[in-house]
């Protein structure tokens, strides 16, 4: 698919499409805002999280956003650190994606809090032992680095356009210097996000030293997925045009990292299953053959099909196949996050009848039942599926990311100067 100048008539047509797209995103964001205000008013009772499965869609989405930010950074920093010429033209675009994803990750934690009004306590009384505090610190560092890098790249290009060679060179040196810091910070971001889960002895599914490597690999998978997705879409509709070879190169890299990710996962499964310790095996049974079987199977099918699409040379070059693979890996990693969070909670370590009290008069929110039914207030094993409010907020957050990316591509000078 060779990209040439779009005909003039199509231009106005796509202009209308652009506004419809923006309007749709804003509608989704508004729905999310309304949902969140309802949740703020009534409390987290509006979600389907309860005392047994006490984390759900919000935390999964947070971890997913953190992961998605990886691709942007690996592309933009690697372009600078390892001097990968091919990636230079998309390094600004990639940096925009990293900035947006990490900002939304920070935002996604807010609806999960029971007391968002006390968010400042994180800065007033930080407990330095808590991986959550490490994560807050590293995410803010990462966000600032990405934004500064993006700003420097853009001003460097502007200087080059104006013919100010010395300013361009100094800016480029700065970008390279920051990239050297950004790469380890990115690796730490994913590791620390993994350690939020992985350090917990209470959840055998999470408590593995492999979790940080798995998070890093899956972050790169979803991150590259987003870069490919945005590159293909921008080629068709947006202002930034990306060469075909660059995208196929990214797709090839994606294939390699999917393999690494699946290898790490499989290694984790074997280590959990072979000793046959019930505490280790039970969450895997939950996610493969239990009530949440659709999580793990969907993840694996998506991963394997996406791998096939990018591994087979004929499909790897096709925009349609690239787009499909990109969407699939983004979903795959999202499913992996859900699969980590929900089955991790389903069977508590101390599990005897009548089970754990759920914290509310009934286990699932039902506006029709306001009374107390003791039969619903204990769960021996947890059950969870996000409520409408949770989905609305989650979709609003994803739409927010899409809106920021779309506007960024349209209004920020992200193309290389020689291309413009």
């Amino acid at each position: 698919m060779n990209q040439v100048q779009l005909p003039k008539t199509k231009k106005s047509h796509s202009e209308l499409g652009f506004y419809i797209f923006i309007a749709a995103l804003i509608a989704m964001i508004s729905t999310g805002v309304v949902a969140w205000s309802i949740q703020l008013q009534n409390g987290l009772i509006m979600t389907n999280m309860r005392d047994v499965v006490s984390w759900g869609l919000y935390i999964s989405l947070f971890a997913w956003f953190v992961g998605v930010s990886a691709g942007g950074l690996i592309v933009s920093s690697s372009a600078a650190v390892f001097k990968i010429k091919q990636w230079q033209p998309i390094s600004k675009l990639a940096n925009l994606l990293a900035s947006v994803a990490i900002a939304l990750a920070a935002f996604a934690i807010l609806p999960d809090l029971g007391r968002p009004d006390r968010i400042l306590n994180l800065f007033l009384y930080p407990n330095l032992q808590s991986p959550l505090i490490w994560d807050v610190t590293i995410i803010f560092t990462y966000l600032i680095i990405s934004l500064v890098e993006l700003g420097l790249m853009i001003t460097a290009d502007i200087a080059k356009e104006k013919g100010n060679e010395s300013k361009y060179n100094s800016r480029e040196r700065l970008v390279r210097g920051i990239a050297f810091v950004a790469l380890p910070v990115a690796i730490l971001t994913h590791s620390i996000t993994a350690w939020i889960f992985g350090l917990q002895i209470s959840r055998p599914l999470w408590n593995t030293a492999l979790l940080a490597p798995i998070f890093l690999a899956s972050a790169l998978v979803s991150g590259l997925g987003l870069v490919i997705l945005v590159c293909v879409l921008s080629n068709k509709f947006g202002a930034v045009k990306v060469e075909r070879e660059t995208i196929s190169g990214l797709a090839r890299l994606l294939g390699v990292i999917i393999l690494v990710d699946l290898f790490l996962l499989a290694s984790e499964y074997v280590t959990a299953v072979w000793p046959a310790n019930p505490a280790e095996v039970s969450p895997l049974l939950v996610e493969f053959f239990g009530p949440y079987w659709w999580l793990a199977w969907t993840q694996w099918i998506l991963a394997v099909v996406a791998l096939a699409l990018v591994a087979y040379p004929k499909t790897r070059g096709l925009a349609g196949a690239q787009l499909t693979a990109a969407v699939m890996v983004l979903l795959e990693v999202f499913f992996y996050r859900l699969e980590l969070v929900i089955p991790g909670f389903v069977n508590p370590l101390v599990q005897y009848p009548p089970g754990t009290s759920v914290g509310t008069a009934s286990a699932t929110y039902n506006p029709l039942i306001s009374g107390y039914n003791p039969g619903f207030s204990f769960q021996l094993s947890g059950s969870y599926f996000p409520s409408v409010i949770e989905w609305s907020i989650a979709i609003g957050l994803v739409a927010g990311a899409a809106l920021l990316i779309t506007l960024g591509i349209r209004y920020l000078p992200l193309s290389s100067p020689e291309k413009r």
Partner: protein
Amino acid sequence: MLVDLSRCVGCQSCAVGCKVENNEPLGIWWNRVLTVGGSEIDQPSGNFPNVLMHYLPLACQHCENAPCVKVCPVGATYKRQSDGVVLIDYDRCIGCRYCMAACPYGVRTFNWGNPQYSPGISFPVGQQGDHLDTDPTSGQNRRVYTPSRPKGVVEKCSFCVQRIDTGTEPFCIQVCPVGARVFGDLDNPSSKISTAIRNGNAQQLLPELGTNPKVFFIPPYQKKDVVPSSSNSPPSELSPSPLIISQAESQGGYIPNFKPAPGGVIVPPPAPPEATGSSQVEGE
């Protein structure tokens, strides 16, 4: 705290007493009495007459190495310096529920919405008024008990901090009709609780996790003749072993009326010392 599982009759008095004393809203139970046996409450495992069942009252274990304290990002959950009781500051908790994910015992509970009470009860039962804990170093007052729960914060057993700070025992101790619970100073080797822990071969819950809980359990009686036998005769009457009686009497202490089961029977059973090396595979 010590719970003698060989005495516990599963009457749920401590669970209900706790709920009343601490004015726990609907759906919130700081203290639960679990049935270890069959798949339902009060149901044994096995086939009659060879059946097995005991109760496990479960509340906060007040761990020495408490995962909840370590993960709390804002220090709202903290272990009190003076006595090691793990408390929650209702005014500082941000409701992230990381502590609930970190607790291996599943004893933390969250105020998902505005607290609800049984219809017709419009006043706090049990303890009236807030209880403040003063930090000895900063002098800061922290609200560690309140009958009117804020929405969106985590709560759990506090060893009835409002009672122990005024010199009374936790309410579950007082309401237990069979005297299965003992509360006292673990640092004092001659206290009633320390004596009973030694004599009763008391164990901690999930000791392999290294949390070092400050709640101990004296193992329940385990029948020796679980192997099917031809006779339907009931098991012989049990009594404390002569060793325990003599030890307890010489120390003037508490005499648990049970025979400690060799190897322990609390579920999950602690790993025998020689198997420690291999049991650490978990989570690697």
